[in-house]
């Protein structure tokens, strides 16, 4: 299996397009940092105490409403507790203008990583068919499911590689262009306010984003495997990536929206839940896993049975 993955990895990096993708990713991170810096050059930020106090007033006001669900209520109470803690203990929040805040946002590159991974995932099986090399690849003493597995794992490795690149480049850019402004991340655990590491948080967000990338990639992988056309797979996957969320947003008041893939992401676990009311984290994860398993199942089903006539 390791040899098969090495093969796929070798083929991947012998294509110029792959290098272009990585360079594009790096260039985009650098470009975005430059752009943000340039736009923020004249922005004055008020002292943090002021904004925290404002926020606290707002939360208190919301809590006076009578029609709150239990869930919302406990969320607001937690927020109140955190904000009060900051004011009482004089603990500054992490500023978006600082290095810490920048690193926390680094997972935002995942949409570009998704785009690039989708291109690879769509083509990794389909291109073997279009080049005719599938005959050479399958007339070997290796079972087909192993070949498909090596291809999928290569896609996962590629997504991981891009995520690491993105994180490292962000880190370097952050160190060059941003100053550490201090501030800390607070969370309520079992009624106690504790401080969290922004490093761990930024890495965890990137890991969750990687999970989302892999879900979308598995979709493109399945389309590419079933229809043997990478352009079709790239087209459909990217189209759904951009419109899927809006589509399920439109249906948000219907029960069915809960079961649509696009209503769920791994990242929203950390960043404040789905736009649909009453979706718990385990439910989101379950939906994502079921879709993922389904995409892989149809890929394996077709790939292992198909007669090669290309």
């Amino acid at each position, binding site marked *: 299996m390791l*040899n098969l993955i090495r093969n796929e990895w070798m083929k991947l990096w012998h294509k110029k397009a792959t290098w272009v993708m990585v360079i594009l990713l790096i260039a985009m991170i650098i470009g975005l940092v430059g752009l943000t810096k340039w736009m923020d050059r004249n922005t004055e930020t008020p002292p943090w105490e002021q904004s925290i106090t404002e926020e606290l007033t707002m939360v208190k006001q919301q809590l006076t409403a009578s029609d709150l669900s239990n869930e919302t209520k406990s969320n607001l109470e937690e927020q109140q507790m955190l904000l009060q803690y900051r004011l009482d203990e004089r603990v500054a929040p992490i500023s978006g203008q600082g290095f810490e805040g920048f690193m926390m946002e680094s997972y935002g590159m995942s949409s570009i990583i998704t785009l690039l991974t989708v291109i690879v995932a769509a083509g990794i099986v389909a291109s073997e068919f279009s080049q005719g090399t599938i005959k*050479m690849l399958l*007339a070997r*003493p290796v079972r087909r499911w192993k070949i498909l597995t090596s291809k999928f794992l290569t896609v996962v490795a590629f997504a991981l590689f891009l995520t690491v690149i993105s994180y490292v480049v962000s880190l370097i850019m952050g160190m060059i262009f941003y100053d550490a402004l201090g501030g800390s991340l607070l969370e309520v655990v079992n009624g106690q306010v504790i401080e969290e590491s922004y490093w761990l948080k930024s890495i965890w967000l990137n890991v969750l984003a990687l999970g989302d990338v892999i879900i979308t990639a598995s979709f493109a992988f399945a389309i590419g495997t079933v229809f043997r056309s990478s352009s079709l797979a790239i087209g459909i996957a990217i189209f759904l990536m951009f419109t899927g969320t809006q589509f399920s947003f439109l249906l948000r008041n219907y029960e069915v929206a809960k079961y649509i893939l696009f209503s769920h992401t791994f990242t929203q676990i950390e960043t404040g839940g789905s736009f649909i009311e009453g979706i718990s984290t385990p439910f989101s994860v379950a939906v994502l896993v079921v879709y993922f398993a389904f995409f892989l199942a149809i890929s394996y089903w077709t790939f292992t049975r198909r007669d090669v006539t290309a």
Partner: protein
Amino acid sequence: MEIKPIVELKNLSKTIGKKKIIDQLDLSLYPGQITGFLGPNGAGKTTTIRMMAGLMKPTTGDVIIDGLSLRSNFELGISKMGAIVENPELYKFMSGYKNLVHFARMHHNVTKKRIDEVIRQVGMEKRIHEKVSTYSLGMRQRLGLAQALLNNPKFLILDEPTNGLDPAGIREFRTYLRKIAEEDGVSVLVSSHLLSEIELMCDRIAVIQNGKLVAIREVNAIEESQYYIEVQPVDKARSLLSDKGIIVENYQDGLLINVEQSAIPTIVEQLVKQNIAIYAVSHHRKTLEEQFLEMTGGGQVVESNSK
């Protein structure tokens, strides 16, 4: 002692949709033997080859390679086989060497040394590190052969192997095939539409038509002892020879006679004595093309150059 076949097709059938492409095909291929695989367009050659290479699943029946059934023992069975199926499509964006490394990794026990050995055998040392996209068709054909030989196969499938090779290359290729068949006991199945090519290369031919095996013959066995004589006047010579009990038939401007080689001088002498002018005497072989048309019923379109 009977020689055990390397490859056995047992009652092999393939149905696609409602159409029976291959119909209960039985065929055995023996070590050291080069078998030509012929058939008109659409006879099912490619389908048969694809089933032997593990690219298609038979509807019923089985392919046995070196005693291993592809149904129950796929990996081990296929590991005894090397194949070029139609054009050797390789990864154009990588060098020839990287292509070989790639395929070598899919087999067990193919060492770096073996890769170098194969490169030398197909005469690719000079350009092996260049990208495949810069290769000519002949070069790709050589590289295709190289990848098929990597695992020291006991059974080699070659579909249109000389396509794109220059005359010297074809000759070299033929000699090489002979060598591995004779020295290593490899069983080779060659499918080609170049009948003259098959004739030069193969020990026997298997002909399929409409998914069924219609004939299998040793190339040497079909070579009958026939001589062609061009004489004038033809009629006189014909009656003279048939009076002697020799089987005679008209052929082109002269006659075909079924005699032993040793009888030729006497016949010539007698014809000369009768004042019959002799313009040519030559050994006559039915070309494979003639035999092929005979076996497939003649009217059928012979596999043409178009793919």
